[in-house]
């Protein structure tokens, strides 16, 4: 493969082979000029990824390291260093080791919040995917007015998240919200949607489902359209039932897209900040607070507890990394490697 490209730099000639070829000299180690060799071989790839690495590294890597460090101290708003006018107040917080982690993990609050966050994520992603797939399959068929339906269905995605959050807060308003007006018109009593823990949770899940379905739908529709129509035609000729076609053509054909969007959807939902923060403000009480909004509250209300917030952040990150690793293992076991 690589040989046939002749004078072209060997970098991209045979992408599959390049890995083997690139690693072999590296393993030999002592050979002089192997860095130069790697440079000539891979500089295109490196040049194309460098901007991302630098920006992400500086703006995510450094703050992350700093955050991890803060989680090991007892820093709060009161004892971090500040500069007020010309007076420089030195920082007085100290290193406390794993105390923050111990106190958070031994508190019931963390596990309670974690439980609700898991429920929230599972329900939201399940509904996103299920509804998104159903709509994508309907739109994939020959339907009159398909493009109109598509635009209407993607609309929630086109509205900025914070705007949607405000709209829904207004709709759920117990005194002049339209949802209660409709309930009354239908002869049912008004519901104080955001005043009761249970209905507040239903409300935020409903909003998040409304927001998240279009993305899944678009991604899955793209996946459906990349499945060659010939497969379906051949299956039909062979007499496969619609269910068999779905099971043996659609599902495998969507695997690559599905695995990506489900993982991303899980991460996003887990970290979904604006919906809960802007609609219920975590309330009533702490009942609808997920881990992320709780950590934010720690950092930015009252006496700002930087170290506590950082500890929550590190715990959230650790949970997600574990999740992604397990997920990736599971995928690989089924033969899907990325």
């Amino acid at each position, binding site marked *: 493969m690589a040989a046939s490209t002749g004078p072209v730099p060997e970098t991209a000639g045979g992408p599959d082979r390049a890995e083997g070829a*690139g690693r072999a000299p590296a393993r030999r180690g002592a050979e002089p000029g192997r860095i130069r060799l790697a440079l000539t071989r891979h500089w295109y790839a490196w040049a194309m990824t460098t901007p991302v690495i630098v920006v*992400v590294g500086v703006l995510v890597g450094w703050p992350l390291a700093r955050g991890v460090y803060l989680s090991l101290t007892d820093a709060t708003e009161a004892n971090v260093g500040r500069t007020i006018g010309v007076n420089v107040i030195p920082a007085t917080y100290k290193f406390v080791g794993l105390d923050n982690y111990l106190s958070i993990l031994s508190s019931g609050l963390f596990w309670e919040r974690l439980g609700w966050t898991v429920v929230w994520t599972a329900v939201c992603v399940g509904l996103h995917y299920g509804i998104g797939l159903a709509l994508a399959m309907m*739109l994939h068929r020959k339907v009159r007015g398909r493009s109109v339906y598509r635009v209407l269905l993607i609309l929630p995605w086109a509205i900025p998240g*914070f705007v949607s959050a*405000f709209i829904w807060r207004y709709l759920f308003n117990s005194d002049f919200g339209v949802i209660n007006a409709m309930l009354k018109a239908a002869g049912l009593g008004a519901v104080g949607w955001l005043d009761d823990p249970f209905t507040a949770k239903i409300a935020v899940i409903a909003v998040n489902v*409304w927001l998240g379905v279009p993305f899944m739908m678009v991604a899955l529709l793209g996946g459906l*359209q990349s499945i060659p129509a010939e497969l379906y035609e051949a299956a039909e000729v062979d007499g496969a039932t619609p269910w068999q076609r779905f099971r043996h053509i659609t599902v495998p054909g969507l695997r*690559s897209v599905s695995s990506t969007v489900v993982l991303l959807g899980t*991460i996003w939902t887990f970290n979904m900040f604006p919906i809960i923060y802007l609609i219920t403000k975590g309330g009533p009480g702490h009942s609808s607070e997920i881990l992320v909004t709780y950590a934010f509250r720690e950092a930015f209300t009252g006496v700002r507890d930087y170290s506590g*917030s950082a500890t929550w952040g590190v715990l959230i990150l650790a949970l997600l990394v574990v999740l992604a690793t397990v997920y990736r293992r599971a995928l690989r076991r089924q033969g899907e490697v990325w």
Partner: protein
Amino acid sequence: MSTVTATPKARSRGGRGPLASILLHGALITASLISLFPVVWLVLTSLKPRDGWLSSELEIFNRPSLDNYARVLGETEFPTWLLNSVLAAALTTVLGVFVASTTGYAISRFRFPGHRGVMWLLLVTQMFPVAILIVPLYNLMAGLGLLNQIPGLVIAYLTVAVPFCAWMMKSYFDTIPREIDQAGMVDGLTPFGTFWRVVLPLARPSLAVTAFYSFMTAWGEVAYATVFMSQEEKRTLGVGLQQFVGQHWSDWGLLTASAVLIAIPAAAVFLLVQRHLVTGLTAGATKS
């Protein structure tokens, strides 16, 4: 035998029974209504007269008025916020699409040392909760003198938008057959030339998604903008709007009117790219 079974099947490929059609349209119409309703209600509320939002009554067309819009545009800082948001969103989109597509292409096509590391980095970055990053990032921005600067905000947005976009572009490039690249190189193009002239044009649907996502990231972001843009005249829409429905005083009339004005550019960008959002462009390219 096969000709006998083929006849009824042929009908099911072309069309459906009337009942199935009704069910299909019924389901799609229901879903469309649900997706549309909050937006329609937003527009209707914004057209009520001042303080009209205080009633939930469904009689909205009594006294339609543009009072809320006049107040938003004339009596508030809304135009300034709008300009800031447009600048930040436009810059994020242009830079985000370029950077994400080159990165996506590199990790899709080349197997280079650090390849898996880059992919992990892109994925892991998405998991970072704002809560852990925002305080240190604020210090960093202050140190670099980028607070209250739109470029600073754009860079912060890129860290949010680019990992996802690169990931999406990579998935899409994976579906473009390598034979197309190889054909380009046989014709004497450099790897970058192949990417720019051959592969990128084929990836237009994915570029549209990427552009849309970058735009929406910047347009709808609140947390970073709140912390980084503290000066009055540097606020973006997401920050400014919160003033309309604060703790002690709220005016949903102002909020709904400005929400409509914010949603218009988003919807406009959206209509521009949605044609590309879901198309079978690659399928066509591969077959021919």
